[in-house]
């Protein structure tokens, strides 16, 4: 296990590449999900407002 993590002494470079890539892809997906959530929330609120107006 230690051998695997050490990557033959090249661990800073190998893991620096892989982890940064994983991190950035994760950030991209989370940001996308957040953007979608907040947009959906907005659309729902507007729909509710419109329904209220119609009732009055």
């Amino acid at each position: 296990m230690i051998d695997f993590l050490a990557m033959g002494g090249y661990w800073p470079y190998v893991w620096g590449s892989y982890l940064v890539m994983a991190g950035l892809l994760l950030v991209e997906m989370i940001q996308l999900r957040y953007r979608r959530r907040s947009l959906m929330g907005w659309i729902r609120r507007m729909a509710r407002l419109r329904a209220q107006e119609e009732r009055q």
Partner: protein
Amino acid sequence: MSERGIQWFRFTAPANFYDLAGRLIPWFAAVTVALFAVGLYLGLVVAPPDYQQGDSYRIIYIHVPTAWMGMFLYVLMAVYAAIGLIWRIKMADVMAKAIAPTGALFTFLSLWTGALWGRPTWGVYWVWDARLTSMLILLFLYLGYMALHAAIDDRQRASNASAVLAMVGVVNVPIIYFSVQWWNTLHQGASITVTDAPTMATIMFVTLMIMVLAAWMYSVTVVLARARVELLERERNARWVQERLEGGSK
């Protein structure tokens, strides 16, 4: 200009695209996860260390896929942008805009991994190698495209103007690449020459191809998801959006 382009293909209608993409995304996501799992296992565990570079060569399994996707996505973005500009297909615009951030991200990652691979291989993080330099300029082109899109308030105008920029950029990419290559060979005395790994073992090649496919599928998944959000944003007041809302959150 005429509006006739919009009704040509059913899948270019926003609602149809939205539904179809929504159905496809989970599948693409599953394939992506599977490919990454296999590719990472093969690349980090199974594949033997390189006889010259030791374990540092393993960066190739993410360096090459990110570089390829960075270049490929730029061309794809320009194609969509051109289709959107010439035939006035709204969906093509949406796709072009959705591709840009992922393409820029991959281009950045190829530079990042290239630098980290360069340190153990050449002794420095950055050399003004033709390929690294071209990728850096490609990253600037992506940033310019996104900045222009963001700077123009009117949506149609933003799409068209950045489409022109993407097309100018795609014509320039080969010119930039060859001039940088030429510049590099002229100055080779001062810099370090970068050569490819001589021959690649089968396991390494197979792993690399799996990782390329994984990056590709990831791009498809994320771009489709972003295109959906983009579409919702543009059509937030359209009836089809309201209809889909009532049927639960999809």
